[in-house]
């Protein structure tokens, strides 16, 4: 007695969908146990509903609508207190939805709201049910999903409290049953078998037997004890270690840190505000400098050499204020409002400070060697000033004068000793590089510029991430110069100081802040300086002029203005010594400072970079979407090309049966029914008809043979054959 194939298939499909549902629930069980997802029944019902819609072959539009309604009702049921038919929740939900979309776009996953998470979870389930349908009905192969489920459960079992023992047995039973049934289904489709009841019974009996035996065997058989130690403690201990390292030194926050004895490692951005200032032009703010390079970082010799000045005292009366005649200066004053309190006083440029006056300020200690000012109470305890005003000179340096310095003069003995210090055992190649960079220059200024420009080269990359620590026996600068060449300000500034010192030019390492961004504070236009603006740079000593700042860090322009009193005479020389890019940059810098003294160059550059990034982002998104569309279009061409061709040939008049037939051959090839080279059309047509269960291909082929092998002229057959051709084309695309 024969079971009709449709009936058999129906039962088979019901079974397969049920097993698919069971497999999905195996994914949902741990979700309920391990996360705070509740009401899992709602999701299981959704899966059942979605699979049912697939089973009854609902049109995809109806399917989408019904499932969307289900999702909406569920989200409302789970997250809203208002009644279902008061649609006010709907509006709220729409707002929530758009807000969450922008959160996703910004990558702020932690800000997603619960209803939106539920919605996303529904979408995921929808996708999975579609995939189950696809694997079961179209591919007739579930192995991939089965394997994924096994892996998922074993990972959960290993790394979480979820106990996967029973789940694994269930999965094996379900998976094996599905594999067996799908194998039978594939066989019946490929071989066009019509089963009678007995073989199916046999198949199912054998399948059941095999599953029972393999499960019992797997369950009852003696098992090896684990072949390697439980990985979990190892992994967790390792990750703890990493976390600890993280918190101690690996990932440092950007910000002002007194201890620079061990430099290196990545730094995390920190946009907390340190201070506001209302300086008329943005400039760097200095805290202190450090002199002794240890091979790993910087330390300062505790200064003994200090003098004291009182709140609001004119410093020009002291001998600390020494601005040589060759340096031009503009007097400025600024109020500094601290958001993070320190005892040190931020000041613009060493030696040019004229007056510091804090509201509650008492006394200041000026450590000359460190160029550091500490605010103190009368009893010598440090005082944290919240706000202070200062008057200072902003210098401009004459390059012509700077270029006159070619060697240390006799007065600089101590200063030279201190500021050309280098650790013993500094790798030789640093000295070699220093001499190689400066060999063509005669004066210190050009030598310093040559070293500064060296870091503009393409080999050096500015990054706060992925910055290495030097190895135990490795020099920090050596590692940066010759191995990593990735780093932030500390790497660049330290490297420049070391190279300068290696070239016997006195230099020191300066810490402080860059100018910050323009902002409004208490109704006033100010510069906002955050921890992200913490910076380090370089100062070089020029006899008769003083300490001159340099900026080696890639992407930073520096603050100091140079001019050239010999410009006219030195025009040619200038262009020789400066690279064109550098000259350009300097020119821009100079003009900006002249024209708009308060213009925030950094901010404007950021805006420019920002808008460029926007363009790049959107262009790449567009390109990627286009690429994806093209790729999808290409790989799904079997689906859409026939419909296009059918439309095309509907409109065409005249005889074009031959071309249509050849198109059909191409389409059949795309549909996976390629004709072997040596196969005749007749054999091929019989094969195609067998696959699609028609006789259209043979009819078309019989006519086509007459045209090409008999030489018949095409005459009016298109009208008769068009329907068959169209039906075949459609069949190949389904």
């Amino acid at each position, binding site marked *: 007695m024969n079971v009709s194939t449709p009936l058999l298939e129906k039962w088979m499909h019901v079974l397969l969908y049920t097993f698919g549902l069971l497999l999905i629930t195996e994914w949902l069980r741990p979700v309920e146990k391990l996360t705070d997802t509740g009401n899992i029944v709602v999701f299981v019902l959704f899966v059942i509903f979605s699979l049912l819609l697939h089973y009854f072959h609902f049109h995809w539009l109806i399917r989408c609508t019904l499932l969307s309604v289900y999702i909406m009702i569920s989200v409302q049921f789970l997250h809203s207190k208002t009644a279902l038919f008061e649609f006010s929740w709907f509006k709220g939900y729409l707002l929530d939805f758009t807000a969450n979309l922008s959160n996703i776009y910004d990558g702020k996953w932690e800000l997603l709201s619960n209803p939106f998470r539920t919605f996303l979870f529904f979408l995921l389930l929808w996708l999975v049910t579609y995939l189950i349908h696809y694997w079961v009905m179209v591919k007739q192969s579930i192995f991939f999903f089965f394997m994924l489920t096994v892996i998922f459960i074993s990972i959960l079992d290993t790394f979480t409290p979820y106990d996967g023992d029973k789940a694994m047995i269930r999965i094996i039973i379900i998976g094996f049953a599905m594999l067996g049934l799908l194998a039978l289904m594939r066989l019946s489709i490929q071989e066009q078998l019509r089963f009678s009841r007995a073989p199916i019974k046999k198949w199912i009996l054998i399948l059941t037997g095999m599953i029972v035996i393999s499960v019992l065997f797997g369950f009852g058989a003696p098992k090896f004890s684990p072949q390697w130690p439980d990985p979990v403690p190892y992994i967790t201990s390792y990750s703890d270690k990493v976390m600890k390292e993280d918190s101690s030194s690996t990932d440092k926050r950007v910000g002002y840190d007194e201890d620079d004895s061990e430099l290196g490692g990545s730094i995390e951005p920190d946009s907390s505000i340190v201070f506001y200032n209302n300086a008329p032009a943005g400039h760097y703010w200095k805290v202190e400098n450090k002199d002794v390079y240890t091979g790993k970082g910087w330390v300062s010799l505790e200064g003994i050499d200090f003098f004291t000045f009182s709140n609001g005292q004119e410093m020009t009366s002291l001998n600390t204020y020494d601005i040589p005649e060759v340096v031009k200066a503009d007097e400025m004053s600024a109020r500094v409002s601290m958001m993070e309190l320190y005892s040190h006083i931020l000041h613009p440029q060493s030696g040019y400070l004229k007056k510091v006056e804090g509201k509650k300020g008492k006394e200041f200690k000026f450590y000359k060697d460190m160029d550091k000012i500490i605010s103190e109470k009368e009893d010598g305890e440090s005082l944290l000033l919240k706000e202070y005003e200062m008057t200072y000179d902003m210098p401009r340096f004459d390059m012509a004068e700077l270029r006159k310095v070619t060697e240390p003069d006799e007065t600089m003995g101590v200063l030279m000793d201190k500021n050309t210090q280098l650790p013993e055992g500094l790798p030789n190649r640093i000295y070699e590089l220093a001499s190689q960079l400066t060999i063509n220059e005669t004066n210190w200024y050009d030598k310093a510029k040559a070293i500064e420009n060296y870091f503009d080269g393409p080999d050096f990359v500015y990054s706060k991430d992925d910055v290495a620590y030097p190895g135990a026996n490795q020099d920090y600068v050596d590692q940066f110069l010759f191995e990593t060449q990735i780093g932030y300000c500390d790497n660049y500034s330290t490297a420049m100081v070391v190279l300068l010192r290696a070239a016997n030019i006195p230099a020191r390492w300066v810490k402080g802040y860059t100018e910050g961004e323009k902002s409004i504070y208490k109704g006033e236009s100010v510069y906002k300086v955050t921890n992200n603006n913490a910076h380090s740079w370089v100062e070089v000593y020029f006899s008769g002029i003083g300490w001159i700042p340099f900026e080696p860090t890639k992407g930073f322009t520096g603050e100091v203005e140079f001019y050239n009193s010999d410009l006219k005479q030195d025009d040619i020389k200038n262009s020789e010594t400066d690279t064109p890019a550098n000259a350009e940059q300097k020119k821009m810098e100079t003009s900006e400072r002249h024209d708009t003294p308060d213009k925030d160059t950094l901010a404007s550059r950021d805006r420019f970079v920002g808008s460029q990034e926007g363009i790049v982002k959107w262009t790449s998104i567009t390109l990627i979407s286009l690429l994806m569309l093209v790729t999808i279009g290409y790989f799904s061409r079997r689906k859409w090309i026939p419909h296009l061709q059918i439309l095309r040939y509907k409109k065409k008049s005249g005889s074009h049966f*031959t071309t249509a037939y*050849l198109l059909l*051959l191409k389409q059949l090839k795309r549909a996976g029914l390629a*004709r*072997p*080279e*040596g*196969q*005749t*059309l*007749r*054999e091929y047509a019989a094969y195609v008809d067998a696959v699609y269960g028609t*006789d259209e291909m*043979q*009819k078309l082929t*019989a006519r086509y*043979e*007459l*045209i*090409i*092998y*008999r*030489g018949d002229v095409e005459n009016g057959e298109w009208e008769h054959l068009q329907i068959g051709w169209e039906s075949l084309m459609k069949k190949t695309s389904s």
Partner: protein
Amino acid sequence: MIYKQVNQKLEKILGNIEKVIIGKRDIAELSIVALLSGGHVLLEDVPGVGKTVMVRALARSIGANFKRIQFTPDLLPSDVTGVSIFNPKEQEFIFRPGPIMGHIILADEINRTSPKTQSALLEAMEEASVTVDGVTRGLEKPFFVMATQNPIEYEGTYPLPEAQLDRFLLKMKMGYPGVDEEIEVLHRAQYAAPLEELESVITLEELIALQEEAKAVIVDDTIKRYIVNLANRSRTHERVYLGVSPRGSIALMKAAQAYALLQGRDYVLPDDVQYLVPFVFAHRLILKPEANYEGVDAGMVIHEIVATIQVPVKRAVT
């Protein structure tokens, strides 16, 4: 079936033959193909599988004169062609025609006779005439030879040289019948001697007309090119020592025409060509010795050639 068409007259012959030979429709068809295209058939088979019955059935069906020559080592050329005997009464030589002077000839165990006698037969087949005592006598039309070779006896035989095999249009094997077919054979042997009851279904004139019709079957240029490609490939195939000659290509085309006619078509399909290639080409190929050692035979080589040569699916000239 969409393709099922037949040539009514030829189908009658086939039906007639099937009355006496069971389950050998393919051999009957191929024999008719050879007969229609004016070629001859070499049957390589053991005795007793129905060769004679088939040829006689064919001869009776077309009302033709059937002759059988049993080749033996002592058979002379004149025993085949005929001999002039002096008639003392008339005082002249009269020609007594040999068995070759018939329409349908069964040349049994052709490899048992001497090359001299073999060549007399082969010449007659090729020229459709015999020359005795300086007089050339044309043979009657249609003229169709079915020669048989016994493949298992080699003692005292004179195997046909490969070059001579070229003169046969088709070479085939009859093979044993299937179990059910053989039971049917026994059944018929018990109750009827059907061969004697066969009536001719077409006349010789009609057959000759059919031969003309076969010649007129359309062979498109694409098909000709396909045939030539197949022949060409047989000449360049790495296992083949000597490939198919142009005579082989012609044979394939003629056979394909006849086969198309048999299928009720007036044009040749690549299918016809593919079907006939093994029968037309196999005995014309000489394989390299190493191919024989490796157990590769001509059939395999031809199968490979057919599978790799592109079947034309577009018009050669548009």
